């Protein structure tokens, strides 16, 4: 069941559902732009996210950095978020409509592939992406730049 933050059109809700529906979901939410700019939204996610899967302070930073990236640099109107558990890994996915602008996607792709020094001056969010790289095991970006996925190693 997707937790809704704000109002999504039927078309956007359907797109989020199509892009993010899986069977092994721990948590799923969708946000309109107003909800993304609401400072209480992150606390609401933390309050409703299942406990014991990921360190709450890590989850806060991941949410804050990814939401900031989506609204400040990615120009997202709508954002979907879900968490899935696989063996030893929690996968956190952020799906945005519209997709990230090409330049942002390219810079993030370069940074996550290890070429962070080459693109530091252009890195959106300044310290945000380097922090994410320290918190998670792996970051992937879909070919169409609509989905940012973070792979977090867990003990459970």
């Amino acid at each position: 069941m997707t937790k809704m933050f704000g109002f999504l059109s039927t078309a956007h809700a359907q797109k989020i559902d199509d892009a993010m529906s899986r069977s092994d979901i721990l948590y799923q939410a969708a946000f309109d732009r107003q909800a993304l700019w609401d400072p209480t939204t992150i606390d609401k996610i933390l309050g409703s996210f299942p406990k014991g899967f990921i360190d709450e302070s890590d989850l806060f930073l991941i949410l804050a950095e990814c939401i900031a990236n989506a609204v400040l640099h990615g120009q997202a109107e709508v954002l979907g978020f879900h968490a899935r558990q696989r063996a030893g890994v929690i996968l956190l996915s952020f799906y945005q409509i519209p997709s990230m602008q090409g330049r942002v996607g390219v810079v993030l792709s370069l940074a996550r592939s290890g070429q962070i020094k080459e693109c530091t001056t252009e890195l959106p969010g300044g310290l945000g992406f380097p922090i994410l790289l320290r918190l998670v095991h792996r970051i992937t970006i879909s070919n169409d730049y609509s989905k940012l996925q973070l792979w977090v190693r867990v003990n459970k």
Partner: protein
Amino acid sequence: MAFKFRREGKDLAIYISGVLTFHQHKEGEQLVYQITTLVDNGEVDVVRMNFAEVLRMDSHWLGVLIRILRRVKEKQASFVIEKPNKDICKLFDIVELNRIAEIRP
């Protein structure tokens, strides 16, 4: 989030509280402006930022701190971060803020 200033001679203490994220970017700009104005005018020798009431913080506010720190150091003043909680210490550790700023538990 909220912040208040207290002056003791040429010491400036800033007490910040709440959750600091990019959502409060206007407050961040205001804080940078107020502190740098005092430092630029030579009214302050030491800037102490008290984090005892800050619950969480993101990279946007790290940027705010670094902007303040740079200006304070340019003016040969001191910059101290006081009483950050363990979550914020972890963030400072990730970016190795202790290499450029004095952090007091």
